[in-house]
């Protein structure tokens, strides 16, 4: 289905708000989601012909509610009594709290009982307003497979007994963490893969940014929400510089920084600055702060590596993630020399045994320390263990470049 960009934009913005209103009225998330999808299809057919309604959210809510009513009417007599109770309420649900509704929807779609892949698919469809076909093509699986994944996800949400009511206290914090993680995964899926042959997937990053903005509208005071949005913007800013014409990866240090998108950097820096001053530091804020230090260096050699090293230290203590330690090792090497970095890698031998990033980082540090032969070996081990083509190509090229340099000097 081809929609005009204007109608596409209206639909994508209105879909979750209409869904929120319909779920609030009828309760059954799985059925309501189907009803809104049907209303979206109807809108895509009618609006270009009859014109865009004054209130797209109201129109979609009305049509989807009618579908729900039809659906409920056709069910058993026992159910009919419940229907009449539902129909007895106000004819048009008022979309007053629709920002909270959308947040409640995101919480449902990112329910902790769902696997990440299922939560991602459900969020993109129910909140992002993408069609199943679009999501399937973004994840390179058949449409039928994606349809099943979404349908199972909806059943899982239903079986979990999750209600549309906003959770409170500790549970609310946990649900927000799950939701932010899903948005982070959607962003990365789009950002990391768009250097390869799958260029269209870059749209997933734009979608993740849009969803993060939606969450921020509902929770303007939450510093981690601001941190995540800032992280996305500060990362997205570098997109035009991060791959060559053939899709090969260009490392940060070698990127043409004049291609970085300064408007995104400015917005990200302002966001992280505001969040930082609120005093409650979290993982996304730290990652965003590190991205901001990189983004604000006009030249690679202007990078404030001491600041980055300190931030990675905090992040490491907070997450205990060995991948963070890898990055801290690189920062340590920039501040105190390659030996310091290599020393930090030693304790990772066990937790990251055989991981290509460990070997790639060691190769990089060995090269900085002029241990070229050893660096070549590590680049080759890393290349053989890489799980993505752009990374493998990058690592093989590094090994080849060093072999050439040895030949020239000998």
């Amino acid at each position: 289905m081809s929609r005009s960009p204007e109608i596409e934009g209206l639909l994508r913005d209105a879909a979750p708000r209409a869904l929120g209103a319909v779920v609030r009225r009828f309760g059954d998330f799985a059925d309501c989601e189907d009803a809104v999808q049907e209303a979206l299809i109807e809108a895509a057919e009618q609006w270009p012909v009859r014109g865009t309604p004054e209130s797209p959210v109201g129109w979609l809510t009305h049509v989807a509610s009618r579908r729900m009513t039809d659906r409920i009417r056709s069910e058993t007599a026992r159910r009919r009594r419940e229907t009449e109770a539902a129909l007895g309420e106000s004819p048009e649900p008022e979309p007053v709290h629709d920002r909270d509704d959308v947040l409640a929807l995101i919480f449902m779609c990112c329910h902790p009982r769902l696997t990440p892949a299922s939560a991602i698919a459900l969020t993109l469809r129910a909140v992002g307003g993408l069609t199943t076909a679009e999501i399937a093509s973004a994840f390179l699986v058949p449409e039928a497979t994606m349809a099943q994944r979404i349908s199972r996800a909806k059943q899982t949400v239903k079986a979990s007994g999750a209600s549309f009511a906003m959770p409170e206290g500790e549970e609310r914090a946990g649900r927000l963490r799950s939701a932010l993680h899903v948005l982070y995964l959607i962003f990365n899926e789009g950002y990391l893969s768009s250097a390869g042959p799958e260029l269209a997937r870059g749209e997933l990053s734009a979608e993740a940014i849009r969803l993060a903005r939606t969450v921020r509208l509902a929770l303007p005071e939450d510093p981690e929400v601001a941190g995540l949005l800032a992280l996305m913007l500060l990362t997205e800013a570098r997109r035009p510089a991060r791959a060559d014409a053939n899709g090969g990866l260009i490392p940060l240090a070698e990127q043409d920084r004049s291609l970085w998108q300064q408007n995104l950097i400015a917005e990200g820096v302002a966001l992280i600055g505001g969040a930082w001053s609120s005093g409650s530091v979290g993982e996304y804020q730290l990652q965003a702060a590190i991205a901001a230090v990189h983004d604000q260096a006009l030249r690679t050699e202007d990078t404030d590596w001491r600041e980055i090293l300190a931030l990675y230290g905090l992040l490491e203590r907070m997450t205990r993630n060995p991948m963070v330690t890898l990055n801290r090792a690189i920062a340590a090497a920039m501040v105190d020399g390659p030996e310091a970095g290599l020393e930090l890698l030693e304790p990772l031998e066990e937790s990251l045994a055989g991981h290509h990033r460990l070997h790639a980082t060691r190769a990089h540090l060995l090269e900085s320390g002029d241990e070229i032969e050893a660096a070549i070996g590590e680049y080759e081990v890393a290349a053989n263990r890489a799980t993505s083509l752009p990374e493998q190509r990058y690592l093989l090229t590094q090994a080849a470049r060093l072999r050439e340099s040895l030949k020239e000097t000998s």
Partner: protein
Amino acid sequence: MKFMLLQAYGGVKAEIEPMSKWTPEEIEAHIAYQRELNDELSERGELVDAQALTAPEMAKFVVHAGSGAPVVTDGPSPESKELLAGYRIVDVESPERAIEIAARGSAAPGPGGVPIEQEIEVREVMAAPRLKG
């Protein structure tokens, strides 16, 4: 993460006869098992593709030969046991799940309804670079 599960003509115990010697019921049971597994994977939202390939006798081996016509050799080659019989591509949450599916494939029934215990090669498909943190 996507994995390709490959099965070659070899990789089964020596005493297992080729399928052409099985009874029609045994062949039927084997195919039904594979189909049910595919249906289950599809229902779980994990199946990307599953294909069986035509027999080794139908294989062609093609080699570029400079400006002339490419050299095309007909199968089967003496190493036809190494030729691919079929594959599944699955999109799963973990390597463990891919191994679990491969084990199910390996348990497909053969003569007498006994699992043929075919060896399944499990290979991760190159994807986007993973997350840093």
